[in-house]
């Protein structure tokens, strides 16, 4: 067991973990952050995407011990409050019907937030390429792309608010 200390969704946490424990397992099993989900075992689907120190990572592809000392934001820490005050990207996904079953959604939203941080005004092609690592089986991506476009418009004048 290895002791790790990190900040997750603004809260300081510490645990003894097996060296082989994945960050996503740590989030789900130790912290109860079940908003982040596992969709594959080959890091193809991106359902487990979170932010680690400000950039998006597939949390199935990071060991919990690698996150030691880091700052993690999950889908559960993205909005200011549980009711209302959604992040513009969350709001845009709802507004544009960018989700159906919702399983890929946490990862898709976290990746979209990261995408817009890097490129606040992406073209449709840049959005599609930027989301290539996240699979969705319900939406055909059409409304996800629209949601990111809408969020980019909504945040264009206030990109500083798009924070992880």
């Amino acid at each position, binding site marked *: 067991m290895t002791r790790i200390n990190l900040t997750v969704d603004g809260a300081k946490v510490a645990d003894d973990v097996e060296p082989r424990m994945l960050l996503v397992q740590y989030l789900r099993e130790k912290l109860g952050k079940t908003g982040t989900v596992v969709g594959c075992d080959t890091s193809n689907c991106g359902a487990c995407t979170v932010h680690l120190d400000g950039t998006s990572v597939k949390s199935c592809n990071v060991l919990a011990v690698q996150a030691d000392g880091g700052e993690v934001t999950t889908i559960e820490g993205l909005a200011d409050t549980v*009711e209302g005050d959604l992040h513009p990207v969350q709001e845009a996904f709802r507004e544009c019907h960018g989700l159906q079953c919702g399983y890929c959604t946490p990862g898709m939203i976290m990746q979209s937030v990261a995408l817009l941080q890097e490129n606040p005004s992406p073209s449709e092609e840049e959005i599609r390429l930027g989301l290539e690592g996240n699979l969705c*089986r319900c939406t055909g991506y059409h409304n996800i792309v629209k949601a990111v476009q809408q969020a980019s418009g909504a945040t264009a004048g206030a990109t500083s608010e798009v924070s992880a």
Partner: protein
Amino acid sequence: MTAVADAPEGLEKEIGKERRRKEDQRLITGRTRWTDNLVVPGTLHLAMVRSPFAHATITSIDVSAAKAATNVVDVLTSEDLGEAQGVCINAWPITPDQVAPTHLPIAQGRVAFAGEIVAVVVARSAAEARDAAELVDVEYDELPAVVGIKQAMKDEVLAHPDLGTNKSALWVFDSAEAGTGGSADDAIAQARTDGIVIEREFRQQRLIPAFMEPRSVLVDPTGEQITVWSATQIPHILRFALAATTGVPESKIRVIAPDVGGGFGGKLQQTPEEMIAFAVARRLGKPVKYTETRSESLVAAHHGRDQWQKLTLAAEKDGTVTGLKVELEADLGAYVAIVGGGVPVLGAFMFNAIYKFPAYHFACQTVLTNTTFTDAYRGAGRPEATFGIERMMDELAAELGVDPLEVREKNWITHEEFPFTTVAGLEYDSGNYEAATAKAKEMFGYDALRAEQRERRERGDTVQLGLGISTFTEMCGLAPSRVLGSLDYGAGGWEHASVRMLATGKVEVVTGASAHGQGHETAFSQIVADRLGVAFDDVEVLHGDTQIAAKGLDTYGSRSLVVGGEALVRAADKVIEKALPIAAHLLEASVDDVKFHEGSFQVVGTDAKIALGEVATATFAAHNLPDGVEPSIDADATFDPVNFNYPHGTHLCAMEVDTETGAVRMRKYTCVDDIGNIINPLIVSGQVHGGLVQGIAQALWEEAVYDEQGTLVSGSFVDYLLPTAADTISFEVEHTTTPALTNSLGTKGVGEAGTIASTPAVVNAVVDAVRHLGVNDIQMPCTPERVWTAINSAGSGRETEDSAMPHFEGQEGAES
């Protein structure tokens, strides 16, 4: 008095509104209840030991090392669980003499596909269970495996040697015998003399549903009822199957489908994993959970499609089709799954599609192989049928040298001809193929794209343009119980709903449909809000728990709205009926003088009125009810439709094909679907988009590939090509409307439409782009390699190797 069908004046009508979904607030903030999120104190975890061989005798299983591992509770085999494990049922024996092997949840003595479970490990954590599964020592004697339909049909290598054959069932429909039309054989013979005969053989490759949430099941046996949480589309059917095959009384089983992350037919199953978890929980008296890995899901959750289709179309020289003969061979995999054998039969009524064919013959031979069992995948039988006929109509057009839309128009049912009884014996209630096609053509810019196509051909451009058409219809809304009974389907097709008027005026709606991404909470709230004149936000939709939604037949086959929605309407109408005498009593008026309007009961010609919510409160108090009236205005309804439901549409696709590399690129996709009246346009567009991409993916990318030994080589998301955002484009989606006549909302199903329609549109477009180079078919998925090979082996009318070969002896070329 009658209830109003539409929202009363003054209240904004909910039906037709682009309501944002009620479901989304939780889903976008990560507050979810996927089965794997759920934890019951003391839960033990399961790992499955799976066979690496497609076909083998199990000579020994040594569990001692696994059992000795730290934190392992037990390791169990099929012998250990015995009859308590139940059996995986086939609910649709398509013929009385269907050959079907017994399907035990854990294999006993012999495995019949790679990935089949041979033992289960129970441990304190999932990781320890999986570690210990590696320690289970299974000795196998490998047997020859039969892989693929063509090999199975030979009956040389048997998937189940004790059955003596791989052939499971032969299901036949003939319009001459059924009295619904003439003889297809006669029509073909006639056409060989003085008409046109088109013969083709198409491959429907095997697909994997690949829902995003891997399957998971949690069983808690510590209550008076055994509670099963499962990532399933069919909690009610699963409960029935658990009870029927284990002997546990149905009343002692509660099945809950919590948040379910997609299904597409792939979670329409009574799975070995569910049966094993149920048996282990009962045996140990402890809660147990099993969550599959993605690789397990790809190899062990059921697959879909997998057919060879031999089609013969007879036509007069002017393009009027005179008969169609369909000979299918369908791969069941190693077992006949819950509705596995019935999937191609669902296509039997759809090969004639929107056309007025006078003669039709359909025969399907199902076969067993040593591969993962197959079952419903989005569209289930109807995409296969639509692909077959829409490809054939394009081939007929090419033979005639006319535009493919022209040959369709010549043969389709015109809008004046509805209701129309088809050669397959179905009565189509409504539709307007001309209107949908005209609108699609205009939106697509059909004529301009045809002009560009001609220009590129003349110029000899290395990138050629092809236009693909699919004018589809489907039968959905499963369905009339009597018809399902006549097809030997094991269940009915009704749906149930309850409307509960709460004391505070809020409304609880209970539906037997079980949503897993479809947006029922939102759409059903809209329906009830209009019907009862209550606020959208005051309606709560409950589903997916057999103790809450006690009756139901679940969600598949585009049935939830057209069957379940109608049940809801009827339950709501009963609430108004029950509330009327109470309202009249409270208003001190005669029942005959009171009318329900704008959510209130009003004395005609006066201002005196009482809101439905107030009646609910008064009924709750029950202080002042008319004599003999029960203190409840809650109501139930069970709806069994008299007919299937027939959405249709015209899909147009433009594909660019690089003739030097075989690479294909989708340029434009336009569809106009007639799905009757639309409850929520936003949800509908989402269903269409997602459906389109699944159908397009069959045309271009996806295929479950087995090697000769029966190993699934596309068994991970690295190898099984699900499309990404970067592979797809934005679509043009529109609608025309002819209301369905078989439900009061006038709605038609939309869940499968996009998938059914899009596959042939894409392949027709790819073939159209290179037809002038001598290509008349390309096997799906149309990979650059296959397209390149088709182009480079064509020219003299030769077909691509292994694709669309003319399999009719004694004939040269594809056309006779």
